[in-house]
């Protein structure tokens, strides 16, 4: 049971949601946008998220729809992860989604909710970063479209009152070869140790990680090392591991040392998969 009360609003338009947010904020209600809401409910129960008002954006048409416009796919932020898998138009994203939480939970967890969550895994962002996807953000001055890589730094960098409306991905990016490898400590369900996503474009490997540091990320320096064909695979990986941009996680799922061991082997598997196994 959530011990505090909040007001619940379900606006029908983006403008209404933005206006509502600022009005509630001026009233000191610390409003939160509510998409799937799973994290607000679970962390609210533990008083780790406290708010006086939530704004459920699931009734806003731009947030709920998927459409294909020419060669462009537009994904509403409140599409459930299950719905995105059903649509089946983005195999890399579907593969990543298939290993988040469980089937029933994925009926409630949404794309935007996962990207903007507090949980550090936020794995849906990995294929979106690697496919140079764009984000549509609602702000007080209207909608703005930005490359995800420019506005995602540890978290999606939203200004107060802004919310994620849509993700846009080009078919040409969706068609690129990819891999998504999720390693858990044991068995095949539960929280991951590390998720590694990789994509190859123009003979260059791109990689993004979740569960390695306290936030998901793509790192150009690690990619540069992995793409240095003057070196052996082991050397490329060793160099990439030196470029990890933040402290490696240590938690009940694994020590930093164990994470490095698993990552090293995962990267080797990825190089083998994209370049063929070395004899």
């Amino acid at each position, binding site marked *: 049971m*959530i011990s505090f*009360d*909040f*007001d619940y609003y379900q606006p029908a338009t983006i403008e209404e949601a933005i206006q509502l947010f600022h009005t509630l904020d001026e009233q000191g209600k610390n409003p939160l946008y509510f998409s799937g809401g799973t994290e607000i409910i679970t962390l609210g*129960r533990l008083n780790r998220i406290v708010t006086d008002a939530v704004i459920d954006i699931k009734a806003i048409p731009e947030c709920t729809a998927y459409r294909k416009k020419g060669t462009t796919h537009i994904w509403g932020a409140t599409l459930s992860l299950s719905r995105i898998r059903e649509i089946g138009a983005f195999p890399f994203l579907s593969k990543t989604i298939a290993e988040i939480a*469980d*089937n*029933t939970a994925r009926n409630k967890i949404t794309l935007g909710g996962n990207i903007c969550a507090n949980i550090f895994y936020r794995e849906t962002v990995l294929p979106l970063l690697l496919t140079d996807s764009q984000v549509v953000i609602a702000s007080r001055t209207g909608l703005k479209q930005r490359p995800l890589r420019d506005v995602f730094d540890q978290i999606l960098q939203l200004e107060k009152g802004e919310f994620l409306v849509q993700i846009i991905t080009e078919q040409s990016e969706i068609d690129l070869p990819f891999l998504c490898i999720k390693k858990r400590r044991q068995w*095949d369900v539960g929280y991951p140790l590390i998720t590694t996503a990789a994509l190859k474009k123009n003979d260059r490997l791109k990689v993004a990680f979740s569960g390695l540091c306290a936030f998901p990320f793509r790192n150009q320096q690690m990619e540069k090392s992995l793409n240095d064909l003057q070196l052996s695979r082991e050397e490329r990986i060793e160099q990439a591991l030196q470029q990890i941009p933040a402290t490696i996680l240590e938690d009940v799922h694994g020590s930093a040392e164990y994470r490095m061991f698993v990552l090293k082997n995962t990267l080797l598997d990825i190089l083998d998969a994209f370049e063929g196994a070395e004899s």
Partner: protein
Amino acid sequence: MGSHEITLQINGEERSVHARNTDTLLYVLREKLGLTGAKPGCLNGDCGACTIDVDGQPMKSCLMLAVEAMNKKVTTIEGLQNAPIQTQFIEKFAFQCGYCTPGFIMNCHSLIQQHPNATDTVIKDWLESNICRCTGYKEIEEAIKATLRNVQQYRS
């Protein structure tokens, strides 16, 4: 605004209830409506004991606010009247202590409705949503497969 009267469509009936906006659907079902079939387990979306069906999809009722369920069709275990999967759970001894059983049955019921030709992979994927600590999953898989076989025979 913290609480108000809401109307829910539950098991084919319209039910009005006074609920807080922060009340989960699980809480309202059990404490306000007396529908105690959905079980409180982890309350964190992990165990699946509270699974119900919302508009044809299995949902963990601990992960849903009651206000979110307005204008949706909610089915709880009390709303299944001798559904084929219930019979097969008995036939295949697919339960032990039974605490997780309503959640499993609701999940399996939705699976059968959505995937009448479910493969082993789909069944495994769906069953990962529910945790049972005292029965093997084998009997539950057999209950699903027996129900699917019966559905397919009925159709042909």
